[in-house]
Each structure stands twice: as structure tokens, then as C-alpha cells.
């Protein structure tokens, strides 16, 4: 009964100064809101990164050719990178791998009648579709037999198919590669697939939309290992057998030992040129997790700072309120209020302020994800270039509220509020009633 009444009176005296109470609450509100929204956004952003890395496959090991430092390049042609012999060596010596996928990529022009596009000609084996999670929209993907026969067939990515064959069915048609004077028959069209993340220095982001896939033996036969790039006034020659070998193991636990084995097999052969790197997506995945924890940590830190600032606001207001209400305290003391009654009165006001601030913060926090999307939309609307230059993790992030942060935020907010309110309350109660009554 007494408590109920104390609460009522607390709310009443807060409502007596709505602006002051509102501003005090704002500090706590912003703190709680910031904790919830910042963690939600960093959660969303890291989810995107994590998904992209996961799409590379947690149980894969990627061995990649990298361009060696300029001083190691000798001769007219840049001859570097993975050899087919590396692939044979790995297959012969590493028992834990379940599949090995050689990849060779070359930039080429493709034409169909009067339509020409630039794209990537990818020589690979049938495993490619499974490892990169490519789905077939029409027809089929490459088959082992295509590779054995080195057939001049190809599979188009959705983007290529839509641009080269906008009004016709590409299956059975041929595309032309003018640089090699070659025709390839289309046997399949893939579904659209989003680009993968660019992670680490040695793995670019992969945009699959401009790809044309052919059997790797066909590429070796018809195009060879030498790629000549002609630009105005200069000619570059590059000799490379394979761009990448993607290895799969049956179990995530075997990723690290297998990667170590592969490294000890392959890297010594390329020690002089330093033209091969072994990338383990699992490690990237773990790095991304650490990065996310850091994201979260920074977000929470920022939010805690704003909570402390909010708490100082409460203390400020409560101190001012104690001074302003000295006389009231004196009257109450004269009429029989004990010290603890006065402490209780001011504490109740603080509790009401911090809890309502926290509650509003939570409500606004739940509005955070839609607010984030509106903000992105505004950026997109008024400055599409800027929007495009935002990192993918930001553009595609789906902020998701981390529910554990809500009690955390409320706990900190209320603790800060209580501590900040307690001191003024005790000061108020310690006042001598005679002095308090004399206060003007």
C-alpha cells in the first residue's frame, strides 16, 4: 500500500516537470537503444560475411595461383602458378581428400550474332557446380564424359544467357569466342547466384554472373596455357596451367591436417617463385567470428558509454531536484518522514525514470532494423554511387536483434540510474529538517 502510493507519488512529481523528466529519460533511452541497435546491425553484417564464407565451404581447402613479385619474373612470358603435376601429386599423396577440382579462368569475349559480351571462360570439372553451389536452370552441367572427350560444349551462367540470348532458347545454340576462333555448343544454363565475398588477400570476390563453363581438358586443348593480352602499345604474355585447385575433405575436422599436408607437398615446389597460396575458408570463418565479436564488443562499448552519460544525466537532474525540493524534504521530515522514506521517494523517481527510459529504448530498439533499411534506402535514393561503394556486408546486412543484449542493456541502464540516483537521495535524507525548512 505504502509502496504503491510511493510509486504513484513518484510518477506524479515526475510528471510535474515533463520536459525535465523526458530529457533525463532520453539519456537512458539512447543508451539502451544504442546497445540493441548497434549489436543488431553488427550481428546482421557479420551474418552476411559468415554466410558468404560458408558458401565457399567450410570443408574445402583452396590452393591458388598468385602473381609472384615482379623481381622474380624473368623472360618475356610470365610463367607461374599451379601445374597440372601439382594436382596429380595431391591426388596421389593426400588420402583424406574426397574430390579435387582444377580450375582455369581466362577473360574472353563471347558473341552470338551481333551481341558481344565480356566474360570469364572457366575450365573446370563437374565438381565445380556442387562445390560452388551452382544450380541448373535448364539443360545440364558439365559431365565427366565431356571432359574425357574434350568436347566443345559449354554451360552458361544466367547473366550470360540472358544477355547473349535475350529472345531465344540458348540450349543447342552455339556461342563464338573470336580470340580463339572457336565455337561452343550450349548444353546448360545455370540459375542466378549471388557473388561470394572477397576475403583475405589471396581470394577475390567471385562474381559468377559472367561465367561460361567448359571442360578443363577442352580448354587445355583448344586454348592452351598461354594467354596473350594485347593492349595499346604493349603485349603481355602469361603462361599458367591452373588458376586454382579446390579440394574437399569429408569432415571439417580433417580440414587443418589436410591443409598442412597439402602445404608441405605443394609449397616447396613453388618456394622460389612464391606463386601459390593455400587458403582455408574454415580459418576465414573463424576470423570472421572473431571480427564479429570485436564488432559486438565495440558496439556494446559505445552503448555503455552512452549509458554512463545517461546516468550522469540522471544524477544531475536528481541533484538539481533535491536542491529544488529541499523545502519539501524539510516539510516531509517535519511531518514524520524518516530518512529512509526520503531515500525511498527519490529512489522511486530514479527507478521510474530509468525503467521507462529503458522500456522506450527497447521499443525503439525493435524499430532499429526497419530504420536501418530506410536509412539504406535513403542513401540509395539520393546517392546510388555512394550506396554502391558501401561494403557488401553493410548493403546486405539484415540487422537481427541479439536478445541477450536486452537484459544486459536494461541491467546496465538501471544500475547506472540507481547509483546516480542514490547519492542525491542519501544527501537529501541527511539534511537537517530545520535547515531544510528554512531553505528558500
Amino acid at each position, binding site marked *: *500500500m*505504502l509502496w504503491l*502510493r510511493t510509486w504513484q507519488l513518484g510518477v*506524479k*512529481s515526475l510528471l*510535474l516537470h515533463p520536459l525535465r523528466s523526458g530529457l533525463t529519460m532520453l539519456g537512458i533511452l539512447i543508451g539502451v537503444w544504442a546497445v540493441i541497435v548497434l549489436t543488431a546491425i553488427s550481428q546482421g553484417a557479420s551474418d552476411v560475411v559468415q554466410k558468404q564464407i560458408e558458401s565457399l565451404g567450410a570443408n574445402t581447402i583452396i590452393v591458388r595461383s598468385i602473381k609472384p613479385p615482379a623481381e622474380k619474373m624473368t623472360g618475356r612470358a610470365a610463367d607461374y602458378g599451379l601445374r597440372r603435376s601439382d594436382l596429380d601429386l595431391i591426388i596421389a599423396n593426400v588420402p583424406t581428400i574426397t574430390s579435387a577440382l582444377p580450375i582455369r579462368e581466362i577473360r574472353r569475349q563471347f558473341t552470338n550474332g551481333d551481341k558481344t559480351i565480356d566474360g570469364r571462360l572457366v575450365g573446370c570439372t563437374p565438381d565445380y557446380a556442387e562445390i560452388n553451389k551452382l544450380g541448373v536452370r535448364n539443360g545440364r552441367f558439365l559431365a565427366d564424359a565431356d571432359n574425357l572427350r574434350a568436347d566443345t560444349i559449354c554451360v552458361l551462367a544466367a547473366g550470360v544467357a540472358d544477355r547473349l540470348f535475350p529472345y531465344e532458347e540458348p540450349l543447342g545454340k552455339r556461342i563464338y569466342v573470336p580470340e580463339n576462333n572457336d565455337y561452343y555448343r550450349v548444353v546448360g544454363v545455370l540459375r542466378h547466384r549471388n557473388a561470394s565475398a572477397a576475403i583475405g588477400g589471396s581470394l577475390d570476390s567471385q562474381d559468377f554472373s559472367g561465367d561460361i563453363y567448359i571442360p578443363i581438358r577442352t580448354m587445355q586443348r583448344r586454348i592452351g596455357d598461354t594467354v596473350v593480352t594485347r593492349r595499346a602499345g604493349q603485349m603481355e604474355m602469361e603462361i599458367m596451367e591452373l588458376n586454382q585447385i579446390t579440394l574437399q575433405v569429408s569432415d571439417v575436422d580433417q580440414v587443418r591436417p589436410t591443409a598442412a599436408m597439402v602445404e608441405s607437398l605443394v609449397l616447396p615446389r613453388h618456394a622460389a617463385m612464391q606463386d601459390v597460396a593455400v587458403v582455408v575458408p574454415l580459418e576465414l570463418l573463424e576470423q570472421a567470428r572473431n571480427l564479429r565479436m570485436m564488432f559486438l564488443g565495440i558496439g556494446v562499448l559505445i552503448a555503455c558509454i552512452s549509458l554512463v552519460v545517461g546516468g550522469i544525466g540522471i544524477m544531475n537532474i536528481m541533484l538539481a531536484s533535491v536542491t529544488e525540493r529541499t*523545502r*519539501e524534504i*524539510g*516539510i*516531509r*521530515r*517535519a*511531518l*514524520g*518522514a*524518516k*530518512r*529512509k*522514506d526520503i531515500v525511498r521517494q527519490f529512489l522511486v523517481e530514479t527507478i521510474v525514470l530509468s525503467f521507462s527510459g529503458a522500456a522506450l529504448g527497447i521499443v525503439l530498439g525493435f524499430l532499429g532494423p526497419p530504420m536501418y533499411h530506410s536509412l539504406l534506402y535513403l542513401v540509395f535514393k539520393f546517392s546510388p554511387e555512394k550506396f554502391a561503394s558501401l561494403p557488401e556486408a553493410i548493403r546486405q546486412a539484415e540487422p537481427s536483434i541479439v536478445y541477450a543484449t536486452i537484459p544486459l542493456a536494461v541491467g546496465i541502464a538501471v544500475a547506472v540510474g540507481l547509483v546516480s540516483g542514490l547519492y542525491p537521495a542519501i544527501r537529501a535524507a541527511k539534511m537537517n*529538517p*530545520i535547515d531544510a*525548512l528554512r531553505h528558500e
Partner: protein
Amino acid sequence: MEPYSVKTLEPAVATETFAGSGKVPAVRIRNLKKSYVLKSETVHALRDVSFDIPEGDFVAIMGPSGSGKSTLLNLLGCLDKPTSGNFFLGDDDVATMSDDELADIRSRRIGFVFQSYNLIQQYTVVENIQVPLYYQGRLGPAEQQRAIELACSVGLAERLDHRPMQLSGGQQQRVAIARSLMNDPYFMLADEATGNLDSVTTEEILSLFDRLNNEGRTIIMVTHEDEVAARAKRVIRLADGMLSSDRLNSEASREEARRRQHEHVLALAQRKD
């Protein structure tokens, strides 16, 4: 006027009943001393004061500034503790009580009326009247009803939901008087209760005091105005921290003071017309 019998009582006979009446006096003060230390100098505000106030008395405490009047008021109001001596409220010695016990005594046994009313601004008339019971945890509908009755009895029936800002000084003081009666106190303690009021309103408040005293209320009134003191049954004068006189006002002289005040008010009213 005849001298009041105080000097004969000793602290040791504190529980002795008041001469002849068979009842314990509302207030008994024995050798009360209060000194303050101000900048290493000891100020003796009250040197040695003893007196009784029987139930139903109407006492005016007077004295020039520096006489210890305010100190005595604070001690009587249980807002402060004496340096030595005894102060009995009924059978309990207040002088030895802790801060919390004093607060409890204030809420149960003393009815304060201040010069500047001291109402709580954000409360309505009825809520203000209820404050003393609030700290006893008594907040039921019965208490609310009693607060309304008290407000009506001091003539505020029309203003139950008003806030102090909406009331005149006299009305605010009447709220304060109703509030002081809420806990059915041992005595009402009025500190210059009419000091901020004009003579018409002063007369209203003093008449209210007369009425309450006639109903049996014990009233202690600190004042520096002779006309106000003349309305009390008894006048205690302080000088230099000691009792300098303690006399009864005869019923005739009180009647005379009432008549004079009344005429003054009438004259004022006529001048306004």
C-alpha cells in the same frame, strides 16, 4: 493574572501527575538546555528551562530574537535534540530518542502550523492534509474521509481539489491547520502562524484556534505580536535562554482582546466600503 506553578517540579518526579487534574500533562519540560558550537564558541541558546503544558492549554511563547524562542520551538517540535534535560511527551522522554523515533513522534503526536504554511505544492488540499498519516502507512478510504471532513471543518469544502498555488494565504494556513489535526496530535505547534497574514485573515485563524481550543485541543503558539499572544490562555516569555515570565491571561482580558480585534476588523471593512 496569577503566576503559574512550574518552579516547584523536579525532573525526578517526571511521572508525577499534573497538579490536581489526575492526568499526565501533554508536555513536561525539565531543565532543558541547548547549546551550539559556532566557530569554537559555545552559544547557550537555552540555559535551563522547565515548564508543563497540561492538556487543553493554549500557550503563547514570546520573546525577543536571541531569546531562545526558535530553539525551544525546534525542541518542542522534536526537530532537534536538547543538550541536556528532559522533554516528556505524555510518558515518553523525547530527549533520548533516535532520529527515526523522533520522526515517528512527529508524525503521531505533533501538529505543525508554520508561518509560511509549508504545503506541498504538487498536492491537492486533501492530499496535503493526509501527509502526516502517509508516513505511518495509513492511507485507507477512512483517512481520506477524515481529511475531507477536516478540510470542511476549516471552511475549505469548496476547494478540496485545489492546489496551494490556487489558494489565498489564509486558505493555505487553514489547510495547514487541518493537516496538523490529521494525526490527532498531543498538541498543535504554531510558529508565527499569523505572521504572513493581514489582520482580517489573522482574526479568522485566531478564531479557528479559539474554537479548536474550546474543543479541547492543546495549542502552543510562538509569536512576537502582543495582540496575538493576548488571545492565549497563558503567555510564556523567554529572555536570554531562560524563562522570564509565565502568566495566565484572565478570561476577561482574552475577551477584551477578542473584542478589540473584532472591532479593528470591522473598522477595516467599513473603510473599504
